[in-house]
C-alpha cells in the first residue's frame, strides 16, 4: 500500500508537468500566441529569423537562415524567483534534522 501511495505522489507532478512544458515553448503555436520563457517570464511567440547550423551533410555544418518562433518576454512577466525554493529547502533540512536527531525516550536501564 505504501508503494502505491509513493508512486502516486511521484506521478502527480509528472503529469502536471507535461502540459506546462508544451505551453512554455512555441512548438506548434502561431505567432502572437502566449508562452513562458525558460526564465519563467510570461511572453509572446514572435517570428524571428536566425542563422542555424545544418548538419544534414555532416561536419563542418553549413549555415542557413531559418524562420522560427521564439518566446520573447513581455513587460508584465515575473521572473522565476529562487526565494521560495530556498525557503522550502531550509524547511526540508529542518524536517530531516528533526526526524534524524530526535531525542530518544528513557531506556529501561535508565529507569
Amino acid at each position, binding site marked *: 500500500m505504501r508503494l502505491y501511495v509513493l508512486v502516486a505522489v511521484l506521478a502527480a507532478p509528472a503529469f502536471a508537468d*507535461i502540459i506546462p512544458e508544451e505551453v512554455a515553448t512555441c512548438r506548434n503555436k502561431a505567432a502572437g500566441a502566449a508562452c513562458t520563457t525558460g526564465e519563467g517570464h510570461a511572453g509572446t511567440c514572435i517570428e524571428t529569423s536566425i542563422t542555424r547550423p545544418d548538419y544534414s551533410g555532416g561536419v563542418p555544418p553549413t549555415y542557413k537562415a531559418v524562420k522560427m518562433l521564439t518566446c520573447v518576454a513581455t513587460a508584465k512577466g515575473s521572473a522565476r524567483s529562487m526565494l521560495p525554493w530556498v525557503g522550502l529547502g531550509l524547511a526540508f533540512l529542518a524536517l530531516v534534522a528533526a526526524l534524524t536527531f530526535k531525542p530518544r525516550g528513557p531506556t529501561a536501564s535508565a529507569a
Partner: protein
Amino acid sequence: MTALAQPWWIDSVRSRVYRALRPWLAHLYADRASRVLWLGVFSVVVAFTLTLVSPLWLLALGPVLLGVPHLVADARYLVVQPKLHERGALAWLVALPLLATGFGAPPAISLLCLVPAVLMARGSVARKVIALTAWAGLTALSLAWENPFLLVFLHAHNLVALGWWWALRPRTKQAFVLPVLVLACTGFLLAGGADPFLTALGAWAAPGSGTSFSEFIETAAPGLGATFGPRLVLSFAFLQSVHYAMWLRLVPEDARTRPAPRPFRATWDALVKDFGFPLLLVFIGLTAFIAFWGLEDLAGARWGYLRLAAFHGYLELAVGAFFLVERKRPAW
C-alpha cells in the same frame, strides 16, 4: 500442495530454441557471470552500431519506447527490492525533493534527496560526513553554474547505470571487458572516429524523426562548437542506449536470486509480486501512452517523457549514497 503455474507458449518456444542451440551456445548460458558478460557486450555492440547507422532515430525513439520501462526498473531495483520503501520516513523524505523536481525545482533542491538517504543510512559517522561533503560540493556547483551542472549531470548519469551494475555483485577480471568497451566506444565517438561513417551512411539527417543534430546540440551540447558538439551528441546517443541496456537487461539478470534464466511467466509473476497488478497496469498504460503520443508527435513525446524522468538521476544518486554509507552491495 500448491500447483506450479503453467508456463506460457512463448516459454515452450524458448525452451525448444535453447535445446536446439545447446551444442553451440550452452557454455554461454552455463553460468550467470559469463551470460551477463556476453549479453552486456552484445548490448554495447548493438548500441554502438545503431549510433553509427542511425543516431537521430536512436535518440528520438529510445526514450519513447524504453524510457518508462527503464524508470520502472529503476524503482524496482533501487527501492522496491531493497525494501527501502519500508524503512520508515526514509522513502518519503527522499521522495519530497524528487517531487519538487517534477514541479521545476532547481538542481540544488533535487540534490536534497541525498541528505535523508545519507543521514538515515546505518553507517559510520565518518562515511556520512564524507557523503554529506560530496552533497555540499555538488550543491555549491549547481548553485554557481546551474546550466553547466545540468549538462554534466545529463551526460554523466548515463554512466551511473554502469556503476550500479558493477556494484551489484563481485566481478571477475573478465568483467572489466564491459566498462573498457564502453569507454573505448565513447572515446572513439568523442574523437570523431564515427564522423566519416555517418557521412558515408547519410546518417547526419533522419527525415521523419522530427528532429535534427542542430536540435540535440542546442539541448545536449550547447556552445561546444560545431565539431565537438555533434560528437558529444553521438556519445550521448550511445551511452543512453547502454544506460537502458543496463537497467533493462543486465541489472535484472544479476539482481535475480535464481542464477539461471527464468521463464517469461515467472518473470511476469515476479513483477506482479514486486509492484502488484494494478500498478503494473498503470506502468503499461503509461508506456503505451508515451508510445502512441510518439506516433502523433515524436519530438513532443520525447520532451514529455524527459519531464517525467527528470527525477530518476537524483534517485540513482541518493540510493547510491545510501548503499555507500551502509557499505552494502545493493544485491539482496
